[in-house]
């Protein structure tokens, strides 16, 4: 069976997180999909494994929202590749989302710590 019973909140959270990570990785400069995936994995010390299958739909989504733009170019070894670049709107979005993420982490921590203390 597919995971039809999965609560929607998780899905949103995961999707939002992937978006955040993509935007963050593009802060350094234009990159193609493959690089983005590896950057995320590398930076998180291989803790976050990006599901490559969901990376591309996410890239398209971000582009449709106008947060990133793309163009075809040649990569390091002269292969054709599609490069993504952060737009001004994307930059603003990244700041906003980073702020929200930090709030979220702090909130979760506040919830988790007292319960651990009591145990």
């Amino acid at each position, binding site marked *: 069976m597919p995971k039809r019973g999965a609560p929607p909140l998780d899905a949103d959270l995961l999707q939002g997180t992937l978006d955040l990570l993509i935007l963050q990785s593009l802060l350094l400069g234009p990159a*193609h999909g493959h690089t983005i995936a590896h950057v995320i994995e590398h930076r998180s010390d291989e803790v976050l494994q990006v599901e490559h299958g969901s990376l591309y739909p996410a890239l*398209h989504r971000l582009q449709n929202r106008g947060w990133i733009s793309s163009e075809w170019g040649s990569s390091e070894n002269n*292969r054709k*590749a599609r490069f993504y670049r952060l737009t001004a709107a994307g930059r603003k979005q990244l700041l906003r989302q980073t702020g929200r993420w930090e709030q979220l982490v702090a909130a979760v921590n506040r919830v988790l710590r007292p319960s651990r203390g009591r145990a």
Partner: protein
Amino acid sequence: MIWKRFFKRRARREEAAAELEAHLEREAAENMERGMARDEARRAAHIKLGNTTRILSEISEQDSFGGLETLWHDLRYGARMLVKQRGFALVSLITLALGVGANTAIFTVVDALLIRPLPFPNANRVVVAWERRMPDGEWQNVTSPANFLQWQRENTVFERMAAIFNDSSILSGGDIPEQIATASVTPDFFSILGVNAAIGRVFVPGQDENATANPEAVLGFEVWQRHFASSATVLGTKITLDDKPYTVVGVMPRGFDFFIKQQSFSHKKPEIWVTMHFSAETRASHGRYLQTVGLLRPEVTPAQAQSAMIALASRIEAQDPASMKNWSVNLVPLRMQLTGDISGGLRLLLAAVGLVLLIACANVATLNLARASARRHEIAIRIALGASAKRVVRQVLTESCLLALMGGAAGLCLGCACLSLLKSIAPANLLPPESMSLDVHVFAFAAAVSIACGLLFGIIPAIDAVRVAPREPLQEGAGTVSAGKRRGFARQMLVTAEVAIALVLLTGASLLIRSFHRLTTVDPGFDPQNVLTAWVQFPNARYQKDEEKSQFFARLLDAIRALPGVRSASADGFLPFAGIIAATGVQVEGRPVLPISQLPTVDVSIVEPGFFETLGIPIISGRSFNRSEAFAASGSVVISQSMAQQLWPNESPIGKRVTIYMKRENKPSTVIGIVGDVKHAGLAGAVRPTAYWSYPELGFQFMSLVIRTQGDPRGLIPALRDTVLRVDRNQPIADVVPMETLLSMSVARTRFATRVMAAFASIAFLLAIVGIYGVVSYDVEQRTREIGIRMALGAQRTSLIGQMLKRGMGLAAVGVGLGITASLGLTRLLTSILYETRPNDPLIYLLDSMGLLAVAFLAGYVAVRRISSIEPTAVLRRD
């Protein structure tokens, strides 16, 4: 924005595919750097990326209007599924089309005739007032001027009353004189109906009926177009009807039409209305020939009016027992009067078509149920492969809708076809003349019912599949016995009901067919083959003297007899099947003298010499009229066999004298011959005692020619018209029709109802058979595995076939049993319209049941024949 992406979605998809390919290349290259072999590297990259098709479809979903795109996909998939299951789709389509189409067509007719309001504003307050002959005579008898005027003066329940006399007149003034149907009406007639003229005015109510100085005419729309070139200047001009001038005061709107058939002198719808005037002499007349209508006062109900009028009639009877003894009154609401004779038949058809719709629904349900389990398997696979539940339900729903819409469209086409077919086989004057189009509301209703049925049963497998884990139906394989047992029961119920309903329709139709057959094989008492008839009527102003009229007919008949191809020719006052004949009391000489109202009554007609010989009516004894009797009244009478038996049961009537009260001064006539009985009132009607005088005795203004020809009587028509104009160039003839046509027209409505009913029964029969076939063949399919195992264990094919067939036949037998029970109850409703056929005729029940069972058996056999091609090894290997 999304529009742009939508239209570029193909390019964008290719771009995305290229991007993914680039990604794979890169990943594979990295893998190879880590030391993998090329193939392995590529494979690992694929695994890591996941299903590219799915990624691409996820991407392109973003570029499309999700709903629309999905709908398109579902439609395409649905169409593919339907093509794959051609049989199912075709049968469903036919079922829907028949159920929806036939229903809509027949209901459109019923609506036009029975339900739609009559086109007269006052229709609900108009009643027709008849005289009624007590105790058990005619219920709807025309009345006399004297009686009508007394009703009009003394009643307390009507605002107004009017008298109507449908006639036929010669409209002259054009190139060729035309015989045209007219109606004389008293001035209140139009205001009672509440209708007005389209141009000019109708007759002014309350106009002095004695103002004969200036008779007026109102034209019907069509005659106005045909004869007066739709000219408005016709108002105020004079037209000539039967050589008398009338001033045209108005033209009625298109489609205005008022004609009460019962006891009408003319059998055609009037096209011109003229004012009726009673002379001092007619005002006192007790000759009955008027139809009357009345407009009820607003506060008076028909029942109150009825009892008030009966009281009035009793007073009139007491005042004048000589003319009014045993005569009372009978009020009939206008709608009942105008549709009474057909409403029974139409209700029957409506009920029948409703049953057809029921069967159609049952069939659609059965078909979908039968498919449900096959669907369950397919859907389980799709869910296992990752389709979301919502998506699956939606897809199945789309497919059902597709089928339903196609069925609806087919139904619409069939409905239109049925309607034009109904129009073409309907007898003249049954359906309203204005273009009758398919009733949209009815179509919507019938379509909604059957489509809802299809949807309801169509999505069962989808809902089912969503509820249970996909593993289950997959493991079940295609042939577990327990699968769908619950639904199996529902299916069997539906099929049983279908067979039962089909049998009800079948027996109903068989009874009607048998009755119709009996009717058409009735001997009318004469030979209708190769006889041409035509109506001749003199204008009142010409041929005033009896001798002139007799001589005209003698000359005309001689000229006709001289035509090539004519074997004999004569004329009759009242043709058989034309609907009317004069009737009066007779007094046999030498028996106790009674008042006229208590005498035995006989029909009376007048004939020219050679009449009985021309029509082939046998002369049983004595003689018929000779040539000299065509010119002068001789006081001779020829009587029918039944009149002879009724008045002279134990003696020979030849030479006896009898007084027929038909003239102003009545003298006894001498019986000179006895002829065979004629079914004058129609094939289903009773034979009435009839007296025939020679023409000069009454010298009517009209006669019907009867001409026996050597070949097809239609060939004579041009020569006949020429001959009449040669004898008198101002004299038209009308209603030139072969006798056989009159005969067939007299049973036209019965034939129509019988045909339609037979069509319904065939449809029902067909649907029921399809239902049985569906259930049995599905049963076989379900049990393929079980059958395979049994065969592997040594069971005989023939015994397996027998077993499967038995199950199907069991259902059919139960259905037939139920059907017989229901038919016994329901066909009793047919009693009144059956002719010499008992509604519980055991032979018909036996034949119909056997027929249905036999065909059910055949359908079942065709379905189980598949067993013989089942290979046990193949079946067992399948799972």
